[in-house]
């Protein structure tokens, strides 16, 4: 019985509400809604922009810190072909021992400077091939060698710390 009464009361309230809803919202109410919407939209854009700015700032700071090591790495990388050629020069037969010695000392001097910069070489015959360090340009099948190992090093690999300046150019077997 109570429920029925309640239902009735609710029913009439609803009808009353429906009636008010059917009346047009006033111009002020409309404008208020529109302004509310605008404010939300502007606030959202602002927050997004702030967030983007924060990310950008964070990233730029990292980039700035990385600028010097990156510059060093770039220069050292350009010098690697010179290092290669020095090594080739020393491997070539030379009858003038004095001259050869001079070249060797110059090369040692160059390598000294580069090692101070953190230069390390890698890539040896017999090592297991690792695509993180080596670039395979040739492949052979050879029973005498293990599975997936470096059979020849065409160009040594060089790195400074974690940064690979040049991947070792190798020939792999099996």
């Amino acid at each position: 019985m109570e429920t029925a009464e309640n239902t009735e009361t609710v029913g009439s309230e609803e009808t009353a509400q429906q009636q008010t809803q059917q009346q047009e919202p006033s111009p002020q109410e409309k404008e208020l809604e529109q302004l509310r919407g605008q404010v939300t939209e502007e606030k959202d854009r602002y927050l997004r922009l702030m967030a983007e700015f924060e990310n950008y700032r964070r990233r730029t700071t990292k980039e700035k810190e990385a600028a010097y090591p990156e510059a060093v790495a770039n220069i050292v990388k350009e010098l690697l072909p010179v290092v290669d050629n020095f090594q080739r020069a020393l491997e070539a037969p030379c009858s003038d021992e004095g001259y050869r010695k001079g070249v060797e000392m110059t090369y040692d001097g160059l390598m000294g400077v580069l090692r101070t910069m953190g230069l390390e070489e890698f890539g040896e015959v017999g090592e297991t091939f690792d695509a993180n360090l080596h670039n395979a340009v040739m492949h052979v099948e050879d029973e005498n060698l293990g599975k997936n190992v470096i059979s020849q090093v065409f160009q040594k690999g060089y790195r400074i710390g974690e940064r690979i300046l040049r991947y070792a150019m190798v020939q792999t077997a099996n």
Partner: protein
Amino acid sequence: MSKIIGIDLGTTNSCVAVLEGGEAVVIPNPEGGRTTPSVVAFKDNERMVGQIAKRQAITNPDRTVSSIKRHMGSDYKVNIDGKSYTPQEISAMILQKLKSDAEAYLGEKVTEAVITVPAYFTDAQRQATKDAGKIAGLDVKRIINEPTAAALAYGIDKENDQKIMVYDLGGGTFDVSVIEMGEGVQEVLATAGNNHLGGDDFDERVLNYMLSDFKANNGIDLRNDKMALQRLREAAEKAKCDLSGMTSTQVNLPYITADATGPKHFEMTITRAKFNELTHDLVESTMGPVRQALSDAGLKPSDINKVLLVGGSTRIPAVQEAVKEFMGKDPFKGINPDECVAVGAALQGGVLTGDVKGLLLLDVTPLSLGVETLGGVMTKIIERNTTIPTKKSQIFTTPADNQTTVEVHVLQGEREMAADNKTLGNFKLTDIPAAPRGVPQIEVTFDIDANGIVHVSAKDLTSGKETGITITSSTNMSKDDVEKAVKDAERYAEEDKKRREAIDLRNNADQLVFNVEKSMSEMGDKLPADDKAAIEERINALKEALKGDNLDEIRNKMNDVQAKFADLAQKAQAAAQAAGAAGAQPGAEPPKNDDGYVDADYRSVDNN
């Protein structure tokens, strides 16, 4: 709300870009590369994508997949280790890597993308690309044509209806497209190309030239020497790139090989002319598809409004010249040809997010804004071309004792002297508490809102009294007026600089006289009579010099005063120390920009 990334999913290389602050930024991969090879490899349950997959390709040919784009939209399957993959699934792996590289770079999740496809892709091929995106966890908001993306990157889409040709000479393929673009219109009229023509072919020509030259000179065929061949191939590619910027380049490869007579070196000068000769037929061959595309579209070269160059090989001067000659107009080539498709996709992504519309409308102040300071100079507070809205403040002080009013004369322009610039407005700040010159702190603030309206205020920091004005017309200058103002400033720069220096010197001299006289009166009896006379004499000499215009005179007299004063200060200090009392520490130098405090004063109202 996340960003929509733009992806150029290429046959040999892919590139990803994103809009940031209204500008497209290419996202580098963790190895630092701005493009990523479209190569996927499987090994020991591991999956590799990109450069690393390429490095091991030769050791693992059966499980390395490249150029999968050629199979998109077909039933082709890749079978590896008993598993079968569709082209979409392989492409998805590439997209996944690009997605995570983007997330790593941006520091936020990425879930939406715009991906580009060739203009000639069928519905099936486009759907396959969209599916690939979905598999990779990307909601592909739009698939757009590569030439359209290039046009977007060049900002062409916003103009009237026009017919555009996109000449795309890239990694290993050549594509020509003729498209009609305009407001809401985007129709591909014709496409043509050569699926196996690209930069590598140009390299090969140079390599062959080097090999035959060496053989002719040394009787050795380096083709059999793998190491030598590798070095020569790298050098050939480098020479090609160099010759895009220089008219000749040197190739030096010492110890290229050795024979019974000893080590042999490779040395060669290659000119651009020679390079053009070696590659002439390759360039010519691209004109075939160009003719074909035009003919299919029913157009003549003169019907084409704009020609866009896409792809790394369009950097070659001979290519640019051939296109220019055939089409009868200069091709567009400002944007990095390897990246412009990804850039265009990113721009499309930006438009979809609403970024482009909002942020590209940022305005700038066309000319500098500032105030007039002592001596009739203009002190700039906001430099020209500062993005608005912006706000900047600077602190000034009074030049005369007990000055209770300052006049703020607001100026716009680039000249040194206030009179040569435009007056935007004037106002006075009154009721400044009486104080000796140089003591009050007047903060002048310029606040420009997004509409270019300038609010200038002056506030006495001691009393808190503040007033100001609002200027609405500061950005209402025509482009010509702005240019004229800037040019005038450049033209008169030398003169202006001299005048400014003269004024600054005078101001400094005045300040010096003031400081020295102040210190002298502070020292009082401690200053011996003959010293006092000596320095007074020098001060008078300086005052005399200030009546005239000889700057060197003024400078010399200033130095005299400073020297004598330093002397006296030392003496006084020594005497004070001897007497055990703290000595006065008079400043001998006029204050210069300490703590951002500008030694620029207002003309008082009375001195008008």
